[in-house]
């Protein structure tokens, strides 16, 4: 082995790999084994049951909307925090991390209280005929709340590093604000946005604590996949629970692969000859 100047490679690498194996890989393997103990026919029957499919639809569609919302709102929030100086900026900046720091159950209960028909927001909204608590809309709000920091925190550093002379150059070339944003700023933020969006989407898919309070958990309507897996668990039907969980695992892997692919595409220009 070549001599190295930096010490500690065997020790630190060893600890890292063992830790990763125990904390991440082992549980996933256990999950796959548990699900595999079912046999293909049973496995398929469980994961393609009407109730399970309905839960996928609810989870994915709500996560999609919540992520879309976070993409727009998170980008705007990061933009405001980086580009402008205003009183209270540091407080807003600190508030962004709150959804991470708050126990998700607390978030769920607060949101339910606010959006219930007799709550501060729910009251006026129900007068307008909009029902939030115990509907998919409530699930979306809970998902958006808990996954907001991802987009902000991934975009913020990239935006800070964005060379302001690029925008000045585009201005001297006659670009309008809109064309500069679309042709210069957005493409340069795309890799960070993709990273933020994929994390936000993954978190929304897996969110449990914040959602179950506000969702109402009606099978076929407002029941999320994570809850369905939990219900099977409570019924001591471990293989069925593992089967449903494996679907979420596969979804997460597929999504990570797709985002990495998109990111590599967006970063093509950094590859040197």
């Amino acid at each position, binding site marked *: 082995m070549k001599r190295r100047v930096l010490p500690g490679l065997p020790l630190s690498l060893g600890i890292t790999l063992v830790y990763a194996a125990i904390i991440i890989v082992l549980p996933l393997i256990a999950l796959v084994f548990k699900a595999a103990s079912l046999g293909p026919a049973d496995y398929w029957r469980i994961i393609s049951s009407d109730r399970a499919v309905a839960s996928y639809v609810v989870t994915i569609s709500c996560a999609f909307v919540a992520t879309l919302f976070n993409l727009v709102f998170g980008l705007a929030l990061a933009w405001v925090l980086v580009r402008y100086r205003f009183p209270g900026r540091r407080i807003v900046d600190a508030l962004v991390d709150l959804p991470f720091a708050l126990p998700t159950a607390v978030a769920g209960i607060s949101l339910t209280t606010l959006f219930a028909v007799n709550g501060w927001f729910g009251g006026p909204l129900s007068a307008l005929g909009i029902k939030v608590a115990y509907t998919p809309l409530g699930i979306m709000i809970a998902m958006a709340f808990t996954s907001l920091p991802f987009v902000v925190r991934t975009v913020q550093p990239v935006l800070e590093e964005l*060379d302001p*002379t*690029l925008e*000045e*150059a*585009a*201005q*001297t*070339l*006659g*670009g*309008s604000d809109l*064309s*500069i944003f679309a*042709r*210069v700023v957005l*493409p*340069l933020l795309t890799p960070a946005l993709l990273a933020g969006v994929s994390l936000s989407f993954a978190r929304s898919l897996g969110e449990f604590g914040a959602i179950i309070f506000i969702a109402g958990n009606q099978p076929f309507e407002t029941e999320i996949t994570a809850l369905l897996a939990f219900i099977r668990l409570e019924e001591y039907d471990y293989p069925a629970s593992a089967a449903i969980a494996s679907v979420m695992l596969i979804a997460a892997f597929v999504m990570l692969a797709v985002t990495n692919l998109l990111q590599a595409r967006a970063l093509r*220009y*950094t590859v*040197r*000859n």
Partner: protein
Amino acid sequence: MKIRLDNVVKTFDTFRAVHGVSLDIESGELLALLGPSGSGKTTILRMVAGLEYADGGHIYFGTEDATDIPVRDRGVGFVFQHYALFPHMTVSENIAFGMKVSKVKRSPEAIRERVEELLALVQLSGLGERFPGQISGGQRQRVALARALAVDPRVLLLDEPFGALDANVRRDLRRWLRRIHDELGITTLFVTHDQEEALDLADRVVILDKGMIVQQGTPEEVCRHPENAFVMRFLGDANSLPATVRDGMAYVQDVAYDAAGLADGTAEVLFRPADVAWREDGQGVPAHIVRVLDRPDSRRVLAKTTGGQSVEFDTAPEFPHRKGEAGFIDVRRPRIYKNG
């Protein structure tokens, strides 16, 4: 396009960056704004571009008052010190950017044709598909120039265009930029803190200090007739000896220099290292040699006068004297400026 600045003022918070600068730039002229950092030269350039608004005064493009025209409608080509190329676009896409976002619609063929034309002008044909990260600094700056020229600007503005490049590349690009300017005849204004670059490249040099113009003129005028000690010092190495003016003569120790027209009082005598002869016959300011430095084409002598002042001068490589020897410093082209 003739550019005129009329009493332009810019203040940042409490710092006054530009104090009432007035300046005429003739159509087709290549003009250098030369000054140390903080002299306001870049601020002036950015105000001409519209990247900063002037707090006072007016900027005219021809007869049109351009003071309040936003940058995107002002029709200037701007080249940044660090290129500011769009990293996610190829060289061709960078050059085409201005034409694509323009209100004047051009067909894709017309744009492609113009990009090829500009690539040929900046001698980068064949590199159009590269990304900026894949070409050298000198090539990037040429792409930046092509991009600025693509929109047919009324005036070309360059902010320390060669500041980030190696000395050799810098000299080549300088000569090359001069050729392009002569070919296109576009009014060009560039900012630099490098006096050699300004004198090499410009038709006319404007020297700035602390937000004010201290002298302007052709390279010959500013080199041969620096109007004050700042200009003399800024344009190149200068020795300084304290002097006393009496009856139109300046005295350094016992040596008298013609100072006709200067009022009595203290002054300083400035001279270039090349304008000194080392003598042993008693003519000049007495001094002794402290060190001799060898250079490929000359010897530089560090000497100290009996009055305790350090003086540096250049001699032929055959200069025979050594450290410790005493002699006299005979100044050939002294420039005498009143103190203060």
